[in-house]
């Protein structure tokens, strides 16, 4: 299991567009990817649940990657967050 924390820089937070891009990105990997904020966590493939968390700019989320390709998926996702969120 790989885990990292990230503080959202994107001014609009995880809105429809960035959430859509994130789901697209997560589909590339076999690992199960979960995004947690506070005590809520969702599977990163679930677009509407992800949007429903209402993650805003400045919120810190914990991203957990678990599965056979976690070693490649985790750094790739971290780079994705830095670029898009």
């Amino acid at each position: 299991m790989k885990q990292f924390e990230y503080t959202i820089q994107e001014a609009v937070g995880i809105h429809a567009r960035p959430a859509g891009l994130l789901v697209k990105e997560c589909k590339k990997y076999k690992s199960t990817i979960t995004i947690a904020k506070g005590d809520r966590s969702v599977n990163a493939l679930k677009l509407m649940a992800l949007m429903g968390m209402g993650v805003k700019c400045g919120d810190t989320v914990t991203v957990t990657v678990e599965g056979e390709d976690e070693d490649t998926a985790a750094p790739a996702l971290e780079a994705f967050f830095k670029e898009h969120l």
Partner: protein
Amino acid sequence: MITIQGKGVSAGVGVGPLYFYHRAKTTIKRYHVEDVDAEWHRFKGAQTAAIEQLGELADKARAEAGDEAAMLFETHQMMAEDLDYEEAIEQQIKEEKNNAEAAVTDVAAQFAEMFASMEDSYMQARAADVKDVSNRILGILAGVAAGGIASEVPVILAADDLAPSETVQLDKSKILGFITAGGSGSSHTAILARTMGIPAIVGVGNALKPEYEGRPVIIDGGTGNVVIDPDDMTRDRLLKKREEELRLQRLLESLKGQPNITKDGKSIRIYCNIGSPEDVHAVQVNDGGGIGLFRSEFLYLNGEDYPTEEQQFEAYKQVLSDMEGKEVIIRTCDIGADKQIGYFNLPKEENPAMGMRALRISLTRPDFFKTQLRALYRASAYGKLGIMFPMVTSVWEVREAKKICENVKNELKAEGIPYSENVQIGIMIETPAAAIMSDRLAKEVDFFSCGTNDLTQYTLACDRQNNDLGRFYDPHHPAVLRLLKLVADNAHKNGIWVGICGELGADLTLTETFLAIGIDELSVSPRAVLPLRNAVRMTDTRESSPRILEALGSEYHHT
């Protein structure tokens, strides 16, 4: 003639017959199913078809309105295949034995409710997206084709509200304008209308009556005016306006990418004033050459407490990196006077415009000032930064501020935090004292930027906030213009540049004057960039400058 007032959300004038959008209506039948697997497959078939349609719409939107518009439909696609959404429908069909239509309707309502109950108004608006996606699936289940325009001639289209998919599906060659009963400036109809340059008015409520259908109508998307059965005069006036708008729009569009250069080859930099990182987009769209004034107050005004170094750093860094190496001048905190903030706990003053404000606060509270400067220097590693101090009256203030900058740089160096050594330091010239002392001040800094609103207020002893002063508050007053000339001359004698970042910069009646007195940079609101560029390009300073300089000089002799 009937006049209706709505909210103009996409500028332009449209003329044509009024046409109501006819939506294909589907009534939802509810029943229980025996063969739940067959019903599930019926849903899956409709879902797959909807996803396919949305893919085609994304392609169409990409061709018509660009990637942003296409992303909307890609998001809809993802909603249609969302795992939770699908699971909830599956449970409705397989366990509750509900038919697919009832299942989709109920699940759509649940998800729409979830979005509608969120705090953020943007997220609330996403409820419409869930409904739009679900209606598509329902339409396919019922075998109903989408609504459209059955008219042969182009029309002004009226609707309660249009879903994004409905807007994109419409044949644009048939649409001269949009009017919707509901909606807002950030609704999809408004966004798409603006992208496609079609005039649009929202929020007319129930003012449009069915009997108006087919009657001639003119809409003005700039003012939000809808006129049904216009008389000849109104018609001519608005048509003329439309022609004028189109002409100007084409002209301004053609100026993008062009230099700000006069007929005789004098150039001036045109930068933008912004108030938050989101404004950078407008700077780029309007082809601003840089940012001449980034007001840092939004950081202080939005919160309940002082913004942290980290929050400030992120905001500055974002603007610097978004501007991709173009110059960005950030003004340090300009609180006080007309901008009061509770948590600053500033004592109440009789005359705040002449009180504890701007740099005076920063120098009185050095820790607070240092936090902002640390954030600024850290951000300087990400682009071309200039730091500007507001409300200077004395040389010692500038020296003291610069000393704090040096301390901050030394701290960062010691901590191994990167920053740029090429940060320009400048001051606002907005008090008569600073203008009069500009020969000395110029030796301390890299640039001047004249804040004409305050400079006018302090020079003419006219309160900016007092509307009754009218003709006495005259930014064209020769006293103000002479001070600007004095400042420009002193700047150039000392080899530094001088700009104007007040509202006066965008005043096209003064563009020739600013060129004549040698202003190097004008910083204006993003929308003013192209009109100003046009004015610069129309000027021949060989003709205008001697005339203006003589007028400014002759005043000296007469008074």
